[in-house]
């Protein structure tokens, strides 16, 4: 491991630890009791780390899979399935959460993921078809959500509405730990495929000459990533930009080899969301901002900045 690579890992771990300390210390109240930190802040820090990790990794995988820098965890429409599940689940009086994780949302995302998987089987893995299919699923899901909102009683959909903008305040200890375990496991499963992911970077033909079974690799990746996005969205709602910006940022530091990109995405994703979630709590206390708003507010200018820097360098 070269020294610059080693430094990148050390910095990433360090930043993550700092955001954890920051998130545990700052919130809506000053000098809180230990109880409050353990009951409310710790589960949120764990959940934010888990979801941030999952979203950043999912973004990195999808960008490589579709060779499209604009891909993000929500591109494939899985999240719309989750949103639809959450809204309908809430409407039929289903408990919005099981220990902080929206069960009906996860069910919705599974449903959409299987449709997408079916599309990828049917289209014999034509990437464009899968991508467009995913985008269409997304439109279908969000228009059904909008339809429901137009007809339903405003009161009943309020919870779902906040959830749609990203909300980690529902975190409970059990749910957070379950999410962390599942997301870590899926991240590892994806990481083990770093060779295949690198192979995909050189294009379909190139990958084949490297001895990669492109079809089966794609299918596995789509399935794993869909599950990853599903669990992230069910736990934290729609949190934008982490999955788009973090992978680009990491690639700028360590290049595009996935052996390093994935763990670093996991670390930076975790720090980013932990930090952003802490900001939502103390910026306008006693109000709490939706975390998706904060990540997008920070993420959008940052993304532009990185992009413009790249332009300068290429000139």
């Amino acid at each position, binding site marked *: 491991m070269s020294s610059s690579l080693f430094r990148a890992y050390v910095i990433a771990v360090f930043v993550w630890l700092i955001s954890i300390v920051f998130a545990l210390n700052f*919130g809506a109240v000053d000098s809180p009791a230990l109880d409050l930190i353990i009951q409310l802040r710790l589960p949120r820090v764990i959940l934010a780390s888990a979801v941030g990790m999952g979203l950043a990794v999912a973004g990195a995988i999808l960008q490589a899979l579709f060779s499209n820098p604009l891909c993000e965890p929500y591109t494939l429409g899985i999240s719309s399935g989750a949103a639809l599940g959450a809204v309908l689940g809430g409407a039929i009086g289903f408990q919005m959460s099981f220990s902080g994780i929206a069960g009906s949302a996860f069910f919705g995302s599974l449903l959409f993921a299987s449709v997408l998987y079916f599309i990828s089987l049917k289209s014999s893995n034509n990437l464009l078809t899968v991508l467009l299919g995913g985008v269409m699923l997304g439109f279908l899901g969000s228009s059904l959500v909008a339809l429901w909102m137009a007809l339903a009683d405003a009161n009943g959909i309020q919870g779902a509405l906040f959830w749609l903008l990203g909300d980690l305040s529902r975190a409970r200890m059990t749910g957070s730990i379950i999410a962390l375990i599942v997301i870590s496991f899926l991240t590892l499963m994806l990481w083990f495929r770093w060779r295949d992911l690198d192979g995909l970077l050189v294009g379909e033909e190139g990958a084949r000459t490297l001895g990669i079974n492109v079809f089966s690799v794609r299918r596995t990746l789509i399935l794993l990533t869909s599950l990853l996005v599903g669990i992230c969205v069910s736990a934290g709602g729609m949190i934008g930009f982490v999955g788009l910006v973090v992978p680009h940022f990491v690639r700028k530091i360590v290049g595009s080899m996935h052996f390093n990109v994935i763990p670093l995405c996991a670390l930076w994703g975790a720090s980013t969301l932990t930090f952003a979630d802490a900001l939502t709590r103390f910026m306008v*206390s006693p109000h709490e901002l939706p975390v998706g708003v904060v990540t997008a507010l920070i993420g959008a200018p940052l993304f532009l900045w990185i992009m413009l820097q790249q332009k300068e360098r290429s000139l």
Partner: protein
Amino acid sequence: MKTLRATIFLFFIFLQLGFSETIVDSTGNTIALSTPPSRIITLAPSLSELAADLLDDDIGKIIGVSEHTDYPPVLKNVPSVGSYVRFNLEKIVHLKPDLVIATKDGNPKDRVLHLREMGIPVLVVSTKNISEIFQSIKMISRALAVADRGDALIRRLKRGIDKIKKRNLDKINKSKKKVLLQIGDAPLVVVGNESFLHDALEIVGAENIYKDLDSRYPRPSLEDVFSRNPEVVIVLSMSDVKDSITKMALKWISYKTIAAVKNKRVHILRADSLLRPSMRLLEGLSLLEKTIYSTEEM
């Protein structure tokens, strides 16, 4: 004298010890209280008003309220725990309440559940219609160990409502005024038959033009309003909302085919007392009555 005082003291101690209340709230949850709560947080302005009415001199027991709580004015100085749709869990835990009063109509279910999971007793009431408001008063008064005062307030409320009903009886027998109650604009939000505001219209002897819609706050199209042709349009708002309401009311002016517009009977009613289902409801009902039957033009 001394013994008497001691006896009274002991008696009160006994009362405190004897207090043990088990209440099934409107979510079907059982709340068991062994001492009368002394650190209370209310999660909606209407609930603060109710709790304040019931606590009377003990209003200091309310240690946390939701945003926009301003009545009775003393409560403006009580720490806020955020808005009722997104109250702040950290703030609430930090205040160490021994009772949180929440409403089914607005406080998110999952957050209430979260509070309960942390061992905080939460009493959830429902204030959808007038009879539910009575039940809520009963529940809250029992939880606050002032059941007698609760019953007295309910009697007063019922008497007041009967009085208003009685003086509008003649209108019920003749032709009722067709009223549109509007609470929102773009999209148009009106009052359906499941809201207590619908009950309010019936009490003052008027007819809700959306009495057939089984929902609390439906969003019909403007064309539908034309076809129902209300005789009076009332734009309802909280007292702290300013310009937007005037704009909402002015929008009607160009629709001359609506009877209410033609006869200049589009009114703005800024009435917290009507919009917050609590003891001030009587005051709100009289305001509504006056607005509907005023001959004054806008």
